[in-house]
């Protein structure tokens, strides 16, 4: 492990913490994981002097040391625990100079924890434009810390920051050992007797937040509870009073160190760009229209623009496969490599353009500050269904992939709202469903038909499926709202930050991280299943597989050539492990209109639905009766005949029944694993799996029975 001095970056959301992190570390960044939590840990090195580097750790943005949501908990778990492997040698608290008082609250809490701290006054330019002049030398003396003025976005003021950090690192000076709001000495003594010497404020933090801190064991928690009772200490009241007291002290400091020119001249407050933009974006009618327009462009990008790189990937993988089949000897191993492994990897890579486009939009909207306006105008609607304005981001992200979408629910403060959002997000039609929709719609909806001569019916069907997913998500959320009990009240107190130009490096990083997570997390599973499936469809129990060829020849003495080998392949599939599985579940899926071949696809799709198309092509290429080896999967499926009726198997009823099933079914192990990680309980992935499967089964049943 590195022994570089470790500096934690702490600050309010929107104070410019990420900008500073990027200015300091440049390209010397890496993402990792915090032990025990599924949260990206962003670290980097900063060359503070020639040949002297320090490690910078970027912590989630918070308003106060007292956490209100899961992502905020991480901060006290690190700062409150000197034994934590990420416990910093010192902290840089980044403060928005144009909103100094509120930003100083967090600073004073961090300082009181006994962590040597530098105060970085960011956005000095904004503060000056608004008429504030800050005497930072005086501020440094009043607060008893090093203060550095800077403009992190433009990289101005880094030398001053280096100086301040160097001094603080050399002195290891932490200023305060008095509590802002005193408590009885006996209480602190009792905590320290049981849990060791520490700064009084840190001891108090342990007492008040022990249930959110992982460093304590259940028996230690009981000890804390006993202490709370013994001293009749109410953390809630103390925290409120402490906050008010801190603000009182800070107001005095700020009054002495900051001059407000506007107030002196009694000038009218300036109408900022943000005020003017909010007039449009928060407008009761215009705001929604603008949001719809943005959604429209976003979907246009995901479903139209992304098709070009997707076709290129598809073509590339097919070309590679053909080339490999050409140069390698025809064997089981070649089949496994080309039809199993490479086809599987191709099936993962094909989604990358869509995920990249979606996260390009989402991160642009978040970077500019517009996303919080969307939450603002959507909150009332979402709340009716047991969700929260903040659920909008996961739901939109869910159109690309539920895994990052579920991870983005961490900022939702209310546990019940967050749980419901996690549970219903997979109902949004993710990009893995798109190829299934495309193939099935092409089978059952006539290509050239239009509605009223203007809407392409296939396009309309696709659009309706997406709407259906969203609608089901809302309905399910509403039902869960009635069932789930709330331990705490849902709230929606949120800063509407000023609009800013996006930092493109940050946008690129977000896209890279999401694509990375998808390719390596989901990709592993998809590739594994493709291989398992290939094996299951190629081998069978006992000796039945070996006898198939003989039996077919005996039963059909007149067959020769291609029809014969097709007949053999088809019989082989029926006798393979996959065929046995499919037959086994056939009685259960008969009412939905499915036969055992679709049954195989359903079983394999339960791990990851994107293997449906691959399974279908494996099944029909192995067992199909089409002469042309190059026939597309669509044509092969179209040629399937229902033995009972003699008509095409994939008629309207079966097609729509399958579409509905795939729209609602929980067929993604990665999502279930993410739900488990995010809720830390098997209960919720289980609920998610059961309710979605039941919903899919019943809806598909209803559709098939109505249409057939």
């Amino acid at each position, binding site marked *: 492990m590195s022994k570089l001095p470790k500096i934690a970056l702490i600050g309010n959301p929107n104070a410019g913490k990420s900008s500073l992190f990027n200015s300091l570390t440049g390209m010397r960044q890496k993402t990792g994981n915090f032990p025990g939590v599924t949260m990206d840990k962003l670290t980097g090195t900063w060359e503070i002097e020639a040949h002297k580097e320090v490690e910078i750790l970027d912590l989630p943005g918070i*308003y*106060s040391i*007292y956490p*209100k949501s899961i992502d905020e908990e991480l901060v006290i778990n690190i700062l409150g625990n000197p034994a934590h492997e990420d416990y910093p040698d010192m902290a840089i608290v980044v403060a928005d100079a*144009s*909103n100094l*008082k*509120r930003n100083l*609250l967090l600073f004073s809490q961090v300082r009181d924890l006994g962590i040597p701290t530098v105060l970085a006054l960011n956005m000095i330019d904004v503060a000056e434009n*608004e008429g504030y002049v800050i005497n930072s030398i005086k501020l440094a003396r009043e607060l008893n810390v090093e203060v550095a003025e800077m403009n992190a976005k433009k990289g101005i003021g880094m030398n001053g920051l280096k100086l301040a950090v160097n001094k603080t690192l050399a002195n290891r000076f932490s200023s305060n050992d008095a509590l802002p709001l005193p408590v009885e000495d006996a209480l602190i003594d009792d905590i320290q007797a049981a849990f060791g010497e520490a700064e009084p404020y840190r001891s108090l933090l342990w007492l008040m937040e022990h249930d959110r801190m992982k460093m304590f064991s259940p028996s230690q928690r009981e000890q804390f509870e006993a202490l709370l009772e013994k001293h009749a200490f109410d953390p*809630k*009241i103390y*925290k*409120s009073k402490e*906050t*008010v007291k801190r*603000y009182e002290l800070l107001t005095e400091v700020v009054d002495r160190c900051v001059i407000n020119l506007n107030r002196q001249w009694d000038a009218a407050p300036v109408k900022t760009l*943000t*005020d003017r933009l*909010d007039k449009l974006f*928060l407008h*009761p009618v215009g705001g*929604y229209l603008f949001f719809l327009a943005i959604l429209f462009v976003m979907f246009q990008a995901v479903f139209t623009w992304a098709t070009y790189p997707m076709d290129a990937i598809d073509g590339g993988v097919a070309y590679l496969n053909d080339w490999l089949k050409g140069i390698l000897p025809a064997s089981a191993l070649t089949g496994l490599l080309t039809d199993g492994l490479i086809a599987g990897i191709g099936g993962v890579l094909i989604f990358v353009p869509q995920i990249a486009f979606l996260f390009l939009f989402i991160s642009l909207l978040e970077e500019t500050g517009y996303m*919080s306006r969307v939450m*603002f*105008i959507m*909150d*009332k609607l979402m*709340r009716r269904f047991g969700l929260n*304005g903040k659920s909008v981001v996961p739901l939109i992200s869910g159109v690309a992939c539920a895994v990052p979408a579920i991870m983005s629910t961490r900022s939702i403060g209310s546990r019940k709202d967050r749980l419901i959002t996690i549970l219903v997000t997979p109902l949004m039609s993710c990009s893995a469903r798109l190829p299934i929709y495309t193939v099935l719609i092409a089978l059952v909806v006539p290509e050239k038909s239009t509605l009223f001569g203007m809407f392409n019916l296939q396009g309309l069907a696709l659009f309706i499926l997406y709407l259906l997913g969203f609608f089901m998500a809302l309905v399910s959320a509403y039902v869960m709202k009635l069932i789930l009990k709330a331990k*705490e*009240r849902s*709230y*929606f*107190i*949120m*800063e*509407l*930050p*000023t609009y800013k130009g996006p930092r493109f490096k940050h946008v690129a990083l977000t896209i890279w991280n999401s694509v990375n997570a998808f390719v390596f997390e989901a990709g592993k599973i998809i590739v594994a299943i493709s291989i398992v499936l290939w094996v299951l469809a190629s081998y069978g129990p006992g000796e039945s597989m070996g006898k198939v060829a003989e039996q077919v020849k005996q039963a059909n003495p007149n067959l020769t050539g291609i029809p014969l080998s097709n007949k053999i392949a088809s019989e082989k599939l029926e006798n393979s492990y996959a065929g046995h599985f499919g037959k086994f579940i056939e009685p259960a899926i008969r009412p939905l209109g499915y036969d055992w071949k679709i049954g195989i696809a359903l079983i394999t799709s339960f791990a990851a639905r994107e293997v449906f198309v691959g399974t279908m092509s494996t099944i029909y290429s192995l067992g199909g009766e089409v002469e042309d080896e190059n026939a597309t999967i669509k044509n092969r499926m179209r040629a399937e005949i229902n033995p009972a009726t003699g008509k095409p198997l994939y008629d309207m009823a079966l097609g729509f029944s399958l579409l509905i099933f795939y729209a609602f079914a929980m067929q993604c192990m990665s999502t279930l694993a993410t739900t488990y990680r995010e809720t830390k309980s098997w209960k919720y992935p289980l609920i998610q799996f059961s309710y979605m499967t039941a919903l899919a089964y019943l809806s598909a049943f209803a559709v098939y029975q109505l249409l057939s």
Partner: protein
Amino acid sequence: MVSLADLAIGEKGDIVGFTDEKLSLKLLEMGCLPGSEIMMTHQAPFGDPIAIKVSGYTLSMRKEEAATILINKK
């Protein structure tokens, strides 16, 4: 006494206190301090949630949350 929820867009008031103990910590941390001036700036359709100017920035909250902030109307 009036609460923040009673203000119309553009109206101002001074914060006097809070009626909800649990919410008050979050509100305090976000800069809604007793004595500070608060101005209603935006209301989402159907009047909920609302956006206010306080301590020099814009904060949004639901109407029911605004109703826990007692103010002196100016």
